[in-house]
């Protein structure tokens, strides 16, 4: 788990990156959308 001992910390690490990807993907999909 990326060298992280606890699953909770591993999950937080992954969720940080996943949340950012969500922002990027959602933002790009609505790049010119006014809805």
């Amino acid at each position, binding site marked *: 788990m*990326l*060298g*992280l*001992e*606890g699953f*909770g*910390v591993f999950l*937080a*690490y992954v*969720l*940080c*990156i996943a*949340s*950012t*990807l*969500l*922002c*990027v993907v*959602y*933002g*790009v*999909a*609505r*790049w*010119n*959308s*006014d*809805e």
Partner: protein
Amino acid sequence: MDPLFYLVVILYLVVTFYLGYLGWRHTRSAADYMVAGGRVNGFLVSLSYGATFISTSAIVGFGGAAAAYGMSMLWLAALNIFVGIFIAFAFLGKRIRTMGANLGAHTFPELMSRRFNSRFIHGYAALIIALVMPLYAAAVMIGGARFLEQVLKVEYTWALVVFAILVAVYVFFGGLRGVIYTDALQGAIMFAGMVILLVLTYVRLGGVIPAHTALSDLKDLVPAALAAKGHAGWTAMPLPGSELWWYVVSTLVLGVGIGVLAQPQLAVRFMALRSGREFGRGLVVGGIFILAMTGTVYVVGALSNVFFHRTAGKIALAMVTDPVTGTPNIDRIIPLYISQALPHWFVYIFMLTLLAAAMSTLSSQFHAIGTSVRDLYYLVLPGAPREQGMVAARAGVLLALAATLYLGFRLPVSIIALATSIFFGLCAASFLPALVAALYWPRATRGGVIAGIVSGSLAYGFMVFFVHQKEAVIFGVAQALLGKPYIASFPWNIIDPLVVALPASVVGLIAVSLVSRALPQEHLRECFRGIGGVGIPVRDG
């Protein structure tokens, strides 16, 4: 100090003032001053949002906390990105912008009061901002002044005055446009500084997985006092139900992570966006920016233990513990790590990053306080001409400067740090359910929202004065009235006041709304014009 660094700081200040000047040149009306005319693009707004969000104390203080408590604090970073950026931009921000435009609102208190036709909400929100935010601003200002004192070797008193005046000048003249332009520069510096910090740290410690593994291997070095509180190593969650677990989960994740949604100085950014199209762009920049800030802070803070253990044979806490008193000063961990672990040239970049972080947060605070004073001015003198709005807001910025300086000199640092967390908590407890109802629940009534705001504030006050150990002990109200420092036992004395206050606010808002008359349909149609998917309730009676 390298003369080159002085040159860089001067250059940075010159560019900052030039951007403030650009803001001033384009500020001709009260709407320009309050919400940058509602014509700013998504990149600038999201950089400004992020730079305001992250202050020097968020970098130094939370970095130090991560060094002590470990990477479980990454939950806060994940929430900052998901709630503070994704939910804020994709769900709340768009509606704040549209509704603000529909109602001609230029400040957060004005938006809430026009949505619910309530002078009480207007005055209450403006008063909280005008009275409590100067304490938060004082905390940020002290952080900036300490930086100037240490780095430029100037006397602290002068550092405090000069730093506050520098920021107030470009807010006074440039309004929100000046704030956003300078924030964008400061945000770019912060982004570069923090990305370089993360990369250099992983490189210094041998790569991502080796660095994490090395940190995991240190778990036997957790101090006994922390282990007793539930610390299970720097790459593991605290033991479930332990004191530390409640601290990480309730204070950090709920209190700070969710509390950010109802911050007036952030909400106003959405009203500055020039169109709904800008939200997509803002999300991309905002998400990456906050990951680079908070993600870096917690990872680097925790990993500093590996560096100190390899070079000095001690964990980070031991490095900053006063040999006489035995008390650690966790605010010293990040600066110590930067100066010992990283190349000399980066020390300068990081100093500029901290200066930019302090200035970008303080400028928005001055602006929010100034515009709240303008709100109060119109509440007291409802007939005053609209053109006077900009003058009133500028006078408010000067008052903000004076109040912040006064507090910065008079109050002990412990109270100021506490006031910052109380400001976050009080904003969330009072305004978060009200804001969500304003944007998503047409059935919410004026009485319901006032009940939500009042019950949230009272519950928060009760928790802070009587239940939550940290604040109750300092304020001493429970001791004076009831003869004991706080009235609850574990875990209630540790759980963040927001965990109780937020549901209290939600219950008050919903219960009273359901038994009171809905707002007139025509008013609701006006509020929700251009906002789809909302059923306007028929007014009964």
